[in-house]
């Protein structure tokens, strides 16, 4: 009956690239003969609306079964039936052009399913999409019909909202507009919109206050170290933007909670409904309010899901053992509904007799009142399932899932917040330690833990209220729709929540689907994808493609630094006792030197090299071979030297860029085609002045050098490889196509991991004393 009634009709759908929208598009095209679909899509930066619609909707797995059924006809049919128009629901009249308006005028049904579903979106964007969106669609309908000279009331506008617009309500939440049911006052919509619109610019100016900027800079330095001006500035700007967004989220949530909604999402959705009812009672409108939409039960296939939704991250965190507790009332109801029930409800609404303008019927698509899933039942099912199908950690050990005690939200929040503070403290200490390579993993592991705890905390803050919700969503209207269904509809358009077998749905459909989508380890296999990816990267780097390979020296090729070399020279002619004294004095200076180095590499080099003032250059040159063979080579990483040699074997050009002095690195010269090192001016008697000839090659200078060399050798930075160990080399690493972090310090390791860069942990050859003092002597 639904299929026949809707056959040949045209549907104009917003939010088609979203989870619900894609499911709806599939149902319309698969279950309704000769139907046509117009998708409102925001054009991407590089792709048109149609490209995006094709890529993100028609090519989604949801269309797999239909593709199979139609075979070769699939593509031509879809091309004929699906079209896309560019537009944006946050704009007045959707920002449609003429063609867009014509397409809208030609539609029989308009389904608005676009929303920012993220509960923590900044208030201004929640307002512009969720609150203003439905009215923007309505005014677009009016404009389109006026342009085409037809009656706008002839189109049935179905707006998708959420059951949770009921807010902190206890007991039965009826299927009626809020103005007819709410106990608390509905705020002035216009005031809220005005306030939210100004909010962003207010926060933007607040974020530019000098004290704020100083704070952001400190944070940028903490994250990046001495990465140089431009990169720090870039990072600072990012931190500032994040701060603005965070504030906007915070303010939105506070405002929503002050009015009786758990978050900005439900708050703006509720006001969106209200505004639609207030301003557009002359249109034919129905409202569909799903509860928490989860993976499909039957259509397009069991367990289909798109994107990561609300419950999934929580389930995955739980399976990984990260989320030890989650607040909730054991006998409370978690109102979940499979996505195909929602699409059926929308299409059944369309097929039912259109309401009178101004009537605005509401259909709640929820399970809580007729077929409730109790929170405790769900937790038991999830726990049982993961005990049988454990997730594995990086070492191939199964992770034991914790038992939940259903504590109150406050306690969980306090626990997590305390843990988060402690981890922050440990992290702050660990970052000050000179850790490198594999030991630096400690810090990144710690950071991952911190992130996990933060995430858990944010889940609790965001979603806790959904597990504690005590509203029960009435579904009388929905069951009314279900009653109208004929037998022929049963297969394609099931919408009766009583049909859901929760045990089966959770354990056989939803959890397997979540695990599949989350790409978590479900086998105890040890060597994960990361090491395979790593060796693939290495293979790519060491191919015959002509390229330049740039190496930093300290801690990348040799576990040593400019201070060592100086100490070696300075102690060469001292007696043994004095050597020890000198070494001790230099060690005592260590922390100071490190602090200068951390602040600015160039300053450090300039300052430190003054110590060479009045040294005899010839004597230093003469000693460099002994320094190299007696000290530096013992502290070199054989793997690094091998890597340099392998680059050469592939015909690559190898380049050393270092802040060390030229005579110190002279014995390494045969390994490289180019050596860029520091050089010092000399006085008339051939003694060093302690001043550098030119600025030391640090920070952005290295990136520029890489570009120059790439050009000089007729290749590109895209093909270039750079090896470095610290964030002060970030500009260089970012400049090349193949950055490799060698024995990275924690900050660099974090960055490398996030960006998927190669990481190498190269070690000194075993056999020499672990602490080799830089004491000069001939061999």
């Amino acid at each position, binding site marked *: 009956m639904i299929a026949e009634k809707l056959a040949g009709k045209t549907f104009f759908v917003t939010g088609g690239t979203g989870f619900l929208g894609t499911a709806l598009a599939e149902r319309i095209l698969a279950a309704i003969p000769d139907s046509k679909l117009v998708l409102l899509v925001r054009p991407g930066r590089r792709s048109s609306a149609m490209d995006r619609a094709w890529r993100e909707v028609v090519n989604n797995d949801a269309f797999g079964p239909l593709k199979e059924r139609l075979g070769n006809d699939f593509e031509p049919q879809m091309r004929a039936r699906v079209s896309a128009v560019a537009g944006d629901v946050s704009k007045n009249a959707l920002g449609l052009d003429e063609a867009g308006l014509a397409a809208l005028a030609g539609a029989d049904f308009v389904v608005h399913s676009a929303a920012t579903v993220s509960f923590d979106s900044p208030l201004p964007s929640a307002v512009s999409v969720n609150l203003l969106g439905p009215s923007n669609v309505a005014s677009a309908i009016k404009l389109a019909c006026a342009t085409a000279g037809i009656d706008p009331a002839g189109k049935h506008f179905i707006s998708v909202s959420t059951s949770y617009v009921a807010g902190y309500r206890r007991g039965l939440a009826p299927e009626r507009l809020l103005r007819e049911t709410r106990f608390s006052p509905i705020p002035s919509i216009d005031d809220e919109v005005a306030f939210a619109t100004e909010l962003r610019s207010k926060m933007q100016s607040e974020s530019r206050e000098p004290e704020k900027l100083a704070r952001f800079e400190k944070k940028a330095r903490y994250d990046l170290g001495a990465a140089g001006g431009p990169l720090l500035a870039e990072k600072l700007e990012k931190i500032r933007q994040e701060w603005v967004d965070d504030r906007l989220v915070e303010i939105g949530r506070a405002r929503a909670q002050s009015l009786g909604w758990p978050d900005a999402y439900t708050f703006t959705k509720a006001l969106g409904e209200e505004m639609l009812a207030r301003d557009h009672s002359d249109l034919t409108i129905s409202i569909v309010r799903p509860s928490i939409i989860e993976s499909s039960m039957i259509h397009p296939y069991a367990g289909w899901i798109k994107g990561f939704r609300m419950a999934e991250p929580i389930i995955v965190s739980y399976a990984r053992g990260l989320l030890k507790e989650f607040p909730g009332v054991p006998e409370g109801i978690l109102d979940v509904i499979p996505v195909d029930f929602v699409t059926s409800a929308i299409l059944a609404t369309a097929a039912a007799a259109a309401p009178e303008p101004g009537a605005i019927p509401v259909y709640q698509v929820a399970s809580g009142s007729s077929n409730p899933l109790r929170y405790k039942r769900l937790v038991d099912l999830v726990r049982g399932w993961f005990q049988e199908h454990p997730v594995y950690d990086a070492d191939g050990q199964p992770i034991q899932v914790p038992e939940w005690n259903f504590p109150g939200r406050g306690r969980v929040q306090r626990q997590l917040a305390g843990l988060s503070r402690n981890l922050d403290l440990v992290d702050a200490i660990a970052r000050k330690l000179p850790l490198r390579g594999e030991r630096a993993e400690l810090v990144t592991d710690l950071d991952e833990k911190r992130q996990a705890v933060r995430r858990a905390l944010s889940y609790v803050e965001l979603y806790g209220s959904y597990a504690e919700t005590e509203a029960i969503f009435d579904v009388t209207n929905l069951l009314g729709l279900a009653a109208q269904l004929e037998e022929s509809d049963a297969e394609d358009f099931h919408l009766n929540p009583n049909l859901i077998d929760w045990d089966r749905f959770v354990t056989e459909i939803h959890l397997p689907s979540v695990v599949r989508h989350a790409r978590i380890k479900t086998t105890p296999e040890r060597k994960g994808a990361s090491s395979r990816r790593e060796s693939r990267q290495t293979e790519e780097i060491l191919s015959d493609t002509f390229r330049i390979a740039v190496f930093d020296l300290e801690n990348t090729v040799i576990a040593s630094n400019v201070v060592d070399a100086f100490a070696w020279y300075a102690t060469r002619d001292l007696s043994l006792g004095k050597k020890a004294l000198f070494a001790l004095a230099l060690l005592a200076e260590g922390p100071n030197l490190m602090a200068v180095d951390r602040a600015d590499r160039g300053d450090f080099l300039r300052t430190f090299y003054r110590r060479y003032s009045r040294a005899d250059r010839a004597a230093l040159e003469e000693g460099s071979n002994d320094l190299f063979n007696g000290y530096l*080579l013992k502290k070199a990483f054989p793997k690094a030297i*091998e890597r340099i040699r392998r680059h050469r074997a592939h015909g690559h050009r190898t380049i050393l860029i270092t802040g060390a002095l030229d005579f110190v690195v002279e014995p390494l010269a045969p390994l490289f085609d180019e050596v860029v090192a520091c050089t010092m001016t000399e006085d008339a008697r051939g003694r060093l002045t302690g001043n550098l000839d030119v600025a030391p090659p640090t920070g952005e200078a290295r990136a520029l050098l890489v570009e120059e060399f790439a050009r000089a050798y007729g290749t590109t930075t895209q093909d270039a490889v750079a090896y470095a160990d610290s964030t002060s080399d970030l500009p260089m690493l970012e400049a090349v196509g193949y950055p490799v972090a060698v024995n990275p310090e924690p900050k660099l390791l974090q960055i490398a991991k996030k960006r998927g860069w190669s990481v190498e942990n190269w070690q000194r050859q*075993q056999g020499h004393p672990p602490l080799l003092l830089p004491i000069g002597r001939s061999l």
Partner: protein
Amino acid sequence: MSPRPGFVLNVDKSYPGTLFWHGEGFRLEKLPEGSRVLYPPEAMPALRDPVAAIDQALDYPVGESEPLSALLRPGMKLTIAFDDVSLPLPPMEAPDARSLVIERVLERAARAGVEDVVLIAALALHRRMTESELRHALGDRVFDAFNPRGLLLQHDAEDPDGLTYLGKTAHGEDVEISRRAAESDLIVYVNINLVSMDGGHKSVATGLSSYKSLRHHHNVETMVHSRSFMDMHHSELHSSNWRMGRVIAESGIKIFQIETTLNTNTFPKAFSFLQKREWEWSLKDRVAFLSASKSLEVTPPWLARNIFSSIRSPYGLTGVNAGEVEAVHAGTLKNVYKQQLVQVEGQSDILTMGLPFVGPYNVNSIMNPILVYCLGLGYFFNMYKGQPLVREGGVLIMSHPTRPEFDPVFHPSYIDFWENVLTQTRDPKEIEARFERDFAEDPWYIHLYRTGHAYHGVHPFYMWYWGAHALEHLGAVIILGGDAKAARRLGFMAASTMNDALEMASQYVGVNPSITHLHSPPLVMAEVL
């Protein structure tokens, strides 16, 4: 009292156990009853007046040679070449035999009015010696007289201008040696003959030659046919060197060879227990052994290595022969065999040995796994005349920690060999064919060999070829107390106790194998009848 000869001991109930070298430490192992232990002869008495013996040898040379003084004249070019740091092991207490001989040679040269004198360390493809090593070998007086004036050279087999090509042997082997040596009116070669492999024509033909020349005898084919290379009459290695020696002589180059032999007085007082047979240890020896081995167990390896590296052996000179190369070497061999040779009847199923902290190629450095392999399967296995101590298909059990540690200064190409060659194949023939040339011609290794203190890039290959004969002969090799991973990389097995090792060996030689132990220290060589 003359020193007691070597003998073969049959292990019985009263036997207190055998001392095994175990790298920078020792193990005391109980071998099964009935095992044979080869004890070397006791140290021969040292010459009472070495200087007089040297003078005697220089003035009354053997073979067809005039006395040294008669060969020296004003205006001539004289080159004195000497054995490098690989001999003797451990280094000897000062004065080194070389310094004694060289001083006597220089004195005669000065008397004859020879002005153009150059000293060359005969490195072949070994690492350059350090200043302190040169000072030790030559004495401060000689070093300070020659080095500042640039007259003390170290042979550079990669110096394109420093070599002279002399021609081919009848077998088509290239002969190329140091240009300075080739252009001299006389080469005086000063040798120390610790084992029977050293000396003879090998001194100049190998010590002063290049890769081009060396590869004709330092290869798998030659080494497999040197049975053993400690027995020059059955050694292809020596035949090749002798052929080259004759080409050198034919091209008009005059060599005055001086060879010295040492007794086996290897360890100073503190380690005297190492010199004695176990059942003759005094209470003091036993205490010394216990305290030494216990304290070494808790000493970090690098520190233990430093301690052992500081040992200087109180060797005594047992003979000096000078004159024509072949005649000199015959006399030398007689002395070496007299000190080291023990007769033993028949082969056994298992050969056991303890490997010390030092071999020819890791003086003042780390004995890496490739050197462990070479010391066991190259040197000690080949300490035989006649036939190997262990039967074909038998098992070698050698004791050494075999830590995967390398010296990046002295042995850089070993690291690559370990990581990139042995991970692909262990077959000497295949290694030779696939990898040798690349390593030998590698510019970085050549740079380190010429300017640093690195063994030549090709050197680890020679180490592997050195063991090729043993590798072909043996059924299995077990490293007692060795690092399991390193042992596997070498193609061997590791056992933590002697009982485990014997249990593992039983797969190859049955449950009642015959066992022979090559007792060291000090050095011993078996004549297997």
